[in-house]
């Protein structure tokens, strides 16, 4: 049962990496979209495309935390003790990001929008970095039960590379999705705009992965071996194939499928990492069985998970479908009968 819950955890992390990642990626492109005038159209698209789904996308993170503390309490304690600073910063980042995004929309003044937009965009960069750094620290075996917070746990080559990879991967996902969104909303010019950026981000991922190979060889030996052999390797290869397929699809401008392949490549990498870590939750000091919580609880956690899938699954599908069919639209000022106030300049 513990094994199964560990896989649930991996799947939920993968879901967060994909759903949340797309979101962070959109934030990344918001950040680099340039000045107010130049970045107006891409930002408008990002706003428009993200608005209905970003909250749902980010709830996966809560699931991650809950499965961790209910299923593997000792691991939760160890991770949050050792990784105190990056997690604290990620939490602050989450607040700034969400608030920035939510508050930017109803603002009608350029100056305010700039501030909220900057909050949103900068923290879209920092949050995935810190979360990635935490994963890197765990993968390189720096978290053990009883490790206290120290910079070494997360400011090391593997963590930093993992953080950068997280940023690059989110940027890739974000650009691929925005590409399809642009097509969906009939913004021709933006299709090419984001297509180029998706390709650049993919190149970034590849470069970082190539750098990571030698650097993590000794630093994160156990996981490195897991990723370069057996099931781990298989998934890595599949992920690479999906990534390349995405590139091909982008080049051929078939934006319908590129989203699925890009998501698959990220999810497969997370899955590969799951395989590589087996049987540890904290390589190489704490195994899944050692970390597992009470068996009665695990059984119930499984039941709760199944119920969640049954209830949330269809709702989520409905949301994404309505969204892609263009049924979801923000209320406009005309419909809430709102007037302009002095000083509005947008």
């Amino acid at each position, binding site marked *: 049962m513990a094994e199964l819950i560990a896989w649930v955890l991996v799947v939920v992390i993968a879901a967060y990496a994909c759903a949340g990642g797309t979101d962070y990626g959109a934030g990344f492109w918001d950040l680099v979209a340039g000045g107010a005038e130049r970045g107006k159209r891409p930002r408008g698209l990002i706003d428009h495309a993200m608005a209905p789904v970003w909250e749902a996308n980010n709830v996966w993170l809560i699931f991650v935390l809950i499965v961790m503390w209910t299923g593997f309490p000792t691991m939760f304690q160890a991770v949050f003790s050792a990784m105190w600073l990056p997690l604290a910063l990620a939490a602050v980042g989450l607040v700034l990001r969400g608030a920035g995004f939510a508050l930017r929309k109803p603002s009608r003044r350029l100056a305010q929008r700039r501030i909220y937009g900057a909050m949103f965009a900068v923290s879209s960069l920092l949050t995935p970095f810190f979360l990635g750094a935490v994963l890197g620290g765990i993968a390189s075996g720096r978290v053990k039960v009883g490790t206290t917070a120290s910079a070494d746990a997360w400011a090391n080559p593997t963590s930093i590379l993992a953080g950068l990879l997280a940023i690059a991967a989110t940027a890739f996902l974000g650009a691929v999705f925005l590409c399809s969104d642009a097509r969906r909303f009939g913004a021709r010019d933006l299709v090419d705009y984001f297509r180029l950026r998706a390709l650049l981000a993919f190149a970034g991922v590849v470069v970082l992965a190539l750098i990571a190979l030698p650097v993590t060889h000794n630093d994160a030996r156990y996981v490195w071996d897991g990723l370069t052999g057996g099931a781990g390797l298989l998934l890595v290869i599949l992920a690479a194939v999906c990534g390349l397929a995405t590139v091909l699809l982008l080049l051929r401008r078939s934006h319908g499928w590129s989203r699925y392949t890009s998501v698959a490549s990220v999810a497969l990498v997370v899955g590969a990492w799951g395989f590589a870590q087996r049987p540890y939750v904290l390589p190489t000091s704490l195994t899944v069985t050692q970390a597992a919580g009470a068996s009665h609880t695990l059984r119930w956690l499984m039941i709760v998970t199944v119920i969640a899938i049954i209830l949330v699954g269809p709702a989520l599908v409905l949301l994404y479908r*309505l969204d892609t069919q263009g049924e979801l639209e923000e209320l406009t000022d005309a419909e809430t009968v709102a007037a302009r106030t002095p000083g509005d300049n947008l």
Partner: protein
Amino acid sequence: MLSTAAILANTPAQLLPAREQMAFTLAMHILLVPFGVALPLITLVMHHRGLRRGDAVALLLARRWSAVMAVQFAIGIITGTVLSFEFGLLWPGMMGRWGDVFGLGFGVEAWAFFLEAVLIAIYLYGWRRLKPWTHFWLGVPLPLAALMGAFGIIAANSWMNTPRGFSLDANGNPINVNVQQAIFTPMFGPEYWHFVVAMFMTAGYVVAGVYAVGWLRGRRDRYHRLGFTVPFTVATILTPIQFMLGDSAARAVFHKQPVKFAAMELVWDTDTHVPEYMFGRLNSDGTVSGGLKIPQLDSILAGFKPSTQVTGLTSVPADDRPTIVQATIAHWAFDIMVTVGSLLILLALWYAWSWWRHRDLPRTRWFFRSAAVAGAACLVTVECGWITTEVGRQPWIVYNRMRVSEAVTDTRASSLWTMLGIVIVVYIAVFGAFLAVVLKMRTRWRIADEGSAAARAALPPETDTPYGPRSEPEPAGAASGGGSDSGSGGAS
């Protein structure tokens, strides 16, 4: 006071900043929770009315409330996510030891919120294109999801108050975990219902309060009447129920957490014929200065007769009970809650009387003044209720099983203080901006409603985003068609 100093001496330095941060972030989050739990229902009631009777004013109100909900929900989510992080950042000891015993409640919470987040997105963004009734029905599960979410949180919190569903091995680690018992603890029932009703009341009074203010400023049209009456009626019906639920919660505390009850009521020595103190301050020798003393009443409230024995604070060693200061805080918080609860009953009676006699709202301005204050008072009461629960439980994080000082993180106190500083600054900025944005929306609506010609002219013809087919102006059925001509109806 000596005992306080002694206890502080052997507590880790991290404890104070960790507590302050938990208290601060929770206190802020809880201000949004009433709206997260109850605003969807109130909005749906209004929405239903609008569709059923083709009432454009009601639809406009529902639409505007959902515009507010969109922002409020986002802030609720992020502050809630911070709380989840804080369980690890501040109290890893509690989660490491007890996570598998009581964590499952949060599992329920998580999928409920997930459902809520999905449904609310559909509801908020469905106004324009979904068919009016489809749109309405897709919103209907929202209040249920919110109740489910509250279920999870309160299950966890009531477990911390009356932990059970496990036994301890030789090392003091929990074994034989029984999840059902851990979720349905003795405090769960009283706490849950009291909490849920509090949320609906609070949201009702706050929303009604907004329109009461408009009414006082002379905007007495149907829009304001409707915006006031619907939420206010919901809230007033709940008020007496809440009084009874609170009373039974207090009795549950009396039975299950006697030391907390002693702190709430300032009972020093275990005794019968215990007097009730309204407010007052506990001294270190057990006397109470100030306050209003009512002989016998505490025993009567706890057990319906003066001879009921009430456990006192001194029944346990000094470091197993709240300090003098904490007891006084819990006592004041409790008394403020009860006072506000009682005053709200008077308000509810006034309203009921007026309907019964005149079939109309009371006419005096004092009624609307009180109604305008009721919302804020409710928010204060919610804070007080939580202070009672949390401070009254001290020094335990898990009642009688784990001390707060055992649960706290090892991270250096200086880091925690820094973090606290950052969190306070960020939260104040975010909540300030949130309030500013909501007030700004209100101003825009008022200007539009007042139909000032200049404002009208300035309103862009189509405030849409410039993308393809989606942005075609379209009279999307009754749901949005009704609203556009209702502007003359009123002002906010």
